[in-house]
């Protein structure tokens, strides 16, 4: 399932030649891996590749100074990455005109779009990306457990975590310049070389994804210990949709879910 790579390459070359972008963020092949490619010259576009193994979310690079200084730029983006771009627009991290999208999906290349065009394409073609059914099954199983079993289940899942924060680095939604894990007065997340602190980290990481996660899966792919982060992400996304009728990354003008409120938000649990 390789997208028509010649089309991507020639579109990237045209953007660079016309001076519309200074950088094209895409993928290239290195051995069995797909790694990010940072193309600044039209004669380098030959390295660009795209297939279903390109799972990294390139929108995560948009918070880096080295990348931001090369705006405007173009990003090779599958639907989840497009949603990340919508989210970053909604959260005032990128502005219209700074980012051009080279839209791809499993079927192929869908042209060069600006952010408004991307929003239209997303809502027309990818409005309902079906959630992974195995995730939903696993969640249902966990929810059927007793609290004691759930506690034991997650302790076991979090146990191998070394708090390398690769999940944070891979996520375009984690764009805080100073993350709580770098704060040490007080030390919110333990830095001890043991499992204490894992629970707090995974809870707060998942919670900070409320209203942000586009379920691209980049954090779970980045995790060297194979922790099922998507279970938490999918749960949070599902709850946000149920409670606040919000789906992340479809509306570039959307108010942040956790940064906004309504007078009639539900509160049946507050006495």
């Amino acid at each position, binding site marked *: 399932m390789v997208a028509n790579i010649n089309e991507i390459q020639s579109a990237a070359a045209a953007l660079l030649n016309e001076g519309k972008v200074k950088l094209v963020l895409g993928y290239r092949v290195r051995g069995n891996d797909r790694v990010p490619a940072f193309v600044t010259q039209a004669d380098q576009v030959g390295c660009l590749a795209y297939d279903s193994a390109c799972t990294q979310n390139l929108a995560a690079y948009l918070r880096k100074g080295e990348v931001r200084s090369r705006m405007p730029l173009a990003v090779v983006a599958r639907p989840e990455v497009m949603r990340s771009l919508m989210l970053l627009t909604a959260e005032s991290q990128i502005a219209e005109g700074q980012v051009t999208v080279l839209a791809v999906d499993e079927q192929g290349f869908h042209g060069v779009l600006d952010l408004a065009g991307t929003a239209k394409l997303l809502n027309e073609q990818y409005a309902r990306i079906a959630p992974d059914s195995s995730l939903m099954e696993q969640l249902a199983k966990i929810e059927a457990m007793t609290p004691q079993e759930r506690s034991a289940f997650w302790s076991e899942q979090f146990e191998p975590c070394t708090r390398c924060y690769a999940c944070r680095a891979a996520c375009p939604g984690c764009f805080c310049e100073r993350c709580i894990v770098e704060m040490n007065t007080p030390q*919110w997340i333990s830095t001890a070389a043991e499992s204490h602190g894992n629970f707090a980290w995974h809870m707060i990481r998942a*919670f900070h994804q409320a209203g942000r996660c586009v379920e691209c899966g980049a954090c779970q792919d980045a995790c060297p210990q194979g922790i099922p982060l998507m279970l938490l992400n999918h749960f949070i996304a599902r709850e946000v949709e149920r409670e606040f009728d919000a789906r992340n990354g479809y509306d570039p003008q959307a108010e942040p879910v956790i940064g906004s409120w309504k007078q009639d938000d539900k509160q049946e649990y507050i006495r």
Partner: protein
Amino acid sequence: MTQATTQTETKAEGFEPRIVAFVCNWCTYAGADLAGTSRLQYAPHVRIVKLPCTGRIDPLFILKAYEGGADAVLVSGCHPGDCHYTSGNYHARRRWTIFRRLLSLAGVEEGRLFFSWVSAAEGQKFADLINDVTAQVKAAGPFKHNPARRQAW
């Protein structure tokens, strides 16, 4: 915070729960103050942490309380519409809605996390709330499967 945590586990009978309450300065703390000046008797198990506003209560505070061995956490502030800073409690309410669901998924059951609105005039409500929460936590016993607690190596 972590050194005093073994006490609750060893004393199952005659269990005195450790409850941490995060309250706002303007309503619930004033309500607690009213309960005190009115000489209302209520259970002594709640450690109150006063913050300017419920909007200031980061979910990290709740996690930190559990890490430190709290058997339950209570979060309380001004009724909707009464926030001293206009909307702090509305912001907080959104966070709580998601965060409590997440904690529930992670194994923190109902009865370990409480939310309430208590105004500065509701001294009686505060005393009743503390009594009720304490009774519930006492009945539930020590929070043995607390997933945030430091595990023995």
